[in-house]
């Protein structure tokens, strides 16, 4: 708390990017963990919560006639443009946020304060919920060929990972060569293994001069060497930076937008990761070859590519729990440097890079091409992304397993996964079909099949999103379905009683018996969603349960004439992008 100079400032404007007149006037609060903006209009109270850890930069803009502007950018791609009446307040908030958003020590991270109303036993179970060792046994390991590492049980071909060899220009290592030979021999189906270097060839060659490099095909028997061309963390960081600039332009022309998208290179990089993942999956499932993957250090590009290949090959990783296992295994336990890459602490900004974000986007791109094969929906990916940066749970703190052990995270913080599982009804893909699950995914990687992920990078620009959501509509239908099935069972029981087929129930009629419900899909019975989009059914009668999507329109329709455009000017006006809901629901960022 010692960093908060002013805990409360009144009459702060929250500027609306599209319609100045729609800007809100409210009160700003700073707590130890959050920035909270409260807007109180006639009868509605709107709260916007922003976690300090989510703030990536705070910028004081030049003074204007209407006040002192403060621009807050978040790792969740939220952008807050505040306007203070007094310079003093602006300065105080600025300084407080600078400090609060950049913790210096691990102990300052939210996870060390946060307790989701759980006891020690819950905590222990939460941490044990996802176990990497269990996953290896799920895959059918260890068998006669393998002791550890991971493998696709259908093919007996394996994907292995490591870092670059320290080959320099001439040196070699016989033990390393023998180990590759062993990996190769562990796969009886294919006489060779692929060695995939995920870097562009030029980068790998440059590394050779520094005593590192890549495998010489002459020294290793039976390897096929392949470069993939995924750029390094610095190029990715700059690319995201450029992409976000495109996203935040006020009302860009289509041409500006498309040119900006191209110049950012973002989709090109996403495609390069996807291409590499597809290469791995093909090698394993079509050529039945094992693959050894590395980049420079083996914890960024390698993690992206291996985890993506796992999703392409194994339907288990396309489930809600499977993705948790995959992240736990390929990212957390193999030492993706989350603390550095996400900039959890005030450390070297050159270590920050959206490597994990790119992985999530690749999964999203796949879900666009294959709408029925993932058990989870877009919200799940976005929630995981937010949680990675939030540091509210301990999973993504630290740079490797050893650091995490040293911090005693399992004793001091809670695990994210039980929390996500508890809310899994929000993250379910209603179109998910188990019958399709056994297939290997073969996505198209033609450029035109990659889309800009508006739901992620313009997540907070609600006006840009479809005003009615098919996903929400279907989610509410599947819930209605569960209610309906329960009601039907109960009615059938009552009918049987009335017909005398069943004996009269003793005592008051029981609540519908859960185990009779044919739907075993969702274990958590009555849904009360935080967004209030699904009304509980009264008497199982469906008529009143309107879809959440419609509410948005009601709001729109309820305030005609809310924007007045100066129609006299012939200048291009953003006619409709401003159709943001002024009465935004509580935006909780954690």
């Amino acid at each position, binding site marked *: 708390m010692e960093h908060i100079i002013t805990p409360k400032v009144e009459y702060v404007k929250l500027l609306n990017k599209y319609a100045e007149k729609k800007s809100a006037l409210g009160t700003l609060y700073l707590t130890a963990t959050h920035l909270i903006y409260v807007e109180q209009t006639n009868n509605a109270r709107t709260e916007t919560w922003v976690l300090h850890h989510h703030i990536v930069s705070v910028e004081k803009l030049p003074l204007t006639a209407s006040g002192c502007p403060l621009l807050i950018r978040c790792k969740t791609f939220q952008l807050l443009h505040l306007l203070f009446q007094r310079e003093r307040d602006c300065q105080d908030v600025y300084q407080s946020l600078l400090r609060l958003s950049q913790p210096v020590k691990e102990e300052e991270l939210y996870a060390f304060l946060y307790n989701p109303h759980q006891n020690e036993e819950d905590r222990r179970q939460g941490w044990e919920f996802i176990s990497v060792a269990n996953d290896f046994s799920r895959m059918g390991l260890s068998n006669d060929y393998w002791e550890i590492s991971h493998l696709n049980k259908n093919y007996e071909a394996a994907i292995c990972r490591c870092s670059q060899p320290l080959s320099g220009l001439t040196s070699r290592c016989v033990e390393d060569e023998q180990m590759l030979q062993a990996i190769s021999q562990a796969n009886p189906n294919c006489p060779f293994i692929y060695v995939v270097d995920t870097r562009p060839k030029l980068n790998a060659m440059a590394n050779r001069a520094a005593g590192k490099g890549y495998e010489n095909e002459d020294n290793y028997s039976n390897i096929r060497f392949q470069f993939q061309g995924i750029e390094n963390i610095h190029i990715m960081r700059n690319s995201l930076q450029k992409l976000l600039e495109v996203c935040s332009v006020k009302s860009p022309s289509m041409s500006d937008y498309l040119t900006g998208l191209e110049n950012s290179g973002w989709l090109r990089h996403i495609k390069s990761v996807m291409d590499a993942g597809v290469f791995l999956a093909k090698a394993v499932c079509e050529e039945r070859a094992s693959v050894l993957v590395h980049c420079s250090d083996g914890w960024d590009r390698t993690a992206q590519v291996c985890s993506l290949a796992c999703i392409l090959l194994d339907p288990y990783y396309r489930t809600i729990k499977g993705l948790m296992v995959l992240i736990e295994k390929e990212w957390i336990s193999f030492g993706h440097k989350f603390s550095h890459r996400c900039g959890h602490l005030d450390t070297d900004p050159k270590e920050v890079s959206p490597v994990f974000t790119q992985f999530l986007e690749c999964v999203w791109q796949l879900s666009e091409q294959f709408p029925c094969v993932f058990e989870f929906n877009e919200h799940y990916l976005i929630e995981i992304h937010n949680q990675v940066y939030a540091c509210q749970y301990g999973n993504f703190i630290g740079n490797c397993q050893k650091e995490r052990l040293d911090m005693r995270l399992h004793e001091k913080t809670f695990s994210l996964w039980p929390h996500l599982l508890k809310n899994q009804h929000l993250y379910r893909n209603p179109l998910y079909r188990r019958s399709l699950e056994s297939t290997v995914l073969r996505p198209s990687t033609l450029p*035109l099949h990659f889309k800009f992920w508006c739901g992620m990078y313009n997540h907070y620009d609600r006006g840009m999103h479809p005003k009615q959501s098919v996903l929400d509509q279907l989610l509410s239908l599947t819930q209605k379905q569960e209610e309906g099935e329960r*009601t039907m069972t109960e009615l059938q029981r009552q009918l049987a009683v009335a017909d005398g087929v069943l004996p009269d129930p003793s005592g008051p009629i029981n609540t519908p018996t859960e185990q009779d419900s044919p739907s075993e899909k969702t274990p958590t019975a009555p849904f009360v969603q935080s967004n209030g989009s699904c009304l509980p059914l009264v008497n199982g009668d469906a008529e009143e349960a309107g879809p959440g999507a419609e509410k948005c329109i009601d709001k729109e329709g309820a305030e005609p004439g809310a924007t007045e455009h100066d129609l006299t000017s012939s200048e291009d*006006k953003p006619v409709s992008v401003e159709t943001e809901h002024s009465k935004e629901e509580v935006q909780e960022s954690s």
Partner: protein
Amino acid sequence: MEFAELIKTPRVDGVVLHRPFMPTVEGTLCLTGHHLILSSRQDNTEELWLLHANIDSIEKRFVGSLGTIIVKCKDLRVIQLDIPGMEECLNIASSIEALSTLDSVSLMYPFFYRPLFEVIEDGWQLFVPEEAFKDLESMTDEWRLSEVNKDFSVCPSYPSLLTVPKDIDDESLCKAASFRHGGRFPVLSYYHKKNGMVMMRAAQPLTGTNGRRCKEDEKLINATLCAGKRGYIIDTRTIAVAQQAKARGGGFEQEANYAQWRRIHKAIERSNVLQEGLIKLVEACNDQSHSMDRWLSKLEASNWQSNVKEILTTACLAAQCIDREGASVLVHGTEGTDSTLQVTSLAQIILDPACRTIRGFEALIEREWLQAGHPFQQRCAQSAYSNGKPRSEAPVFLLFLDCVWQILRQFPCSFQFNENFLIMLFEHAYASQFGTFLGNSVAERLKLLLSQKTVSLWSWVNRPQELERFLNPLYEPNNLVIWPSVAPQSLLLWEGVFLRWNRSTKCLDEAYQEMVHIIEYNKELQNKVNSLRRQLAQLETEDGPLQTP
């Protein structure tokens, strides 16, 4: 003329058909007067029936004596036929070329097509101006139906009946017509029930370089304004283009003469530019190279998405003037048959929930496109694979459908029809067995005796068996104005049309089926629950209330 003269080789055996994402088919190729048919004569293999009118262009290649014809269709599909024998291949190619470029409309397939279904509801009689006027009359008595254009002499591209302000007589209409390009004087396009504001459309005024004016024209549009109220003139052209039009006798409304109106210029491209854009876009979509930068820069250079954005923005502007500003609007560009119609029809979809139903949308297309004189035959003569210099081809209607799809994507529950309905309209506008989109105006259609000699598209579409495919399972009538976002991030490439043949639709079809399944299962479930309730209630009234021991 006999088609037989054009068919040099009526059939060839051993032809191999290649289609993207489908297995190759070997069979017999037959040419008829209107179709290219490939049949394997085996069960379970789909035959190919391609209308010659659907063929945009062909390419031939030879390797030894094996000829290959690449057939590029107006619906953007590309197929390949391997034909053994050089002579056969050349004959087939020249026959296809001749048959797909017939000059005379009366030789087109709709004049030969005999439906295999019984026409129950004749689409030709479905949307007559008198009916639309009855609706209007129930809301306001400010308007009348004029027969001034009975013999199409005042305006050849207008229908014979037009809705005009009640106080303006036919003589004034004639004078106003002589002041507007092509005689297209301002007429009613849409009446906004909520506040009584109207949208009118016209062609550009013929002010010329010396600033001609026409009192009757001024009076005509002023008659639509309430006392003391201003209106908006939306000129779909930039001010620069409108200025240039003066030199050719056209122009725009001068403030001095139209003091009660404010003019707003937008920048919707002219039709020949749109055609170039379509060609570039489709070329980009067919590019198999793996360079992301190349794809994005080609997409940008086609300007297609920019055009979508500009058209939608202008339509939103018109809708906003009417609904939010409470002002009447006059829309025009140069000829009033292209961008004008895009804007007036899209604005109605935004404002009027009736246009979002199947019947309402059909009525909109009749009213704002067919009867309003969009030259379908000229605009849709060629599509994205046309080789020659475009004459008057332009994807004006396709752009309109694309804009509708954008709104549909943003409001997936507010339309009674689905994306397939829009794609079907695109296909039939370019090549069809039905007569609906033949001709360039009502006058031309009458002369061709289309309603006697051809079947209307609506007669077929509105049959329950066909309609089923086009119904949106998510539809829940929504009486509100729907404001689409026109931010670039909100406007996507219409994959259903442009990537339709470049991807496997298996997964997307499965997703759609699953969605339909969820919705239908729910309905069924609710019905069962209700029927059980009734049964229980009945039992209880028969037996008296249940007694618990």
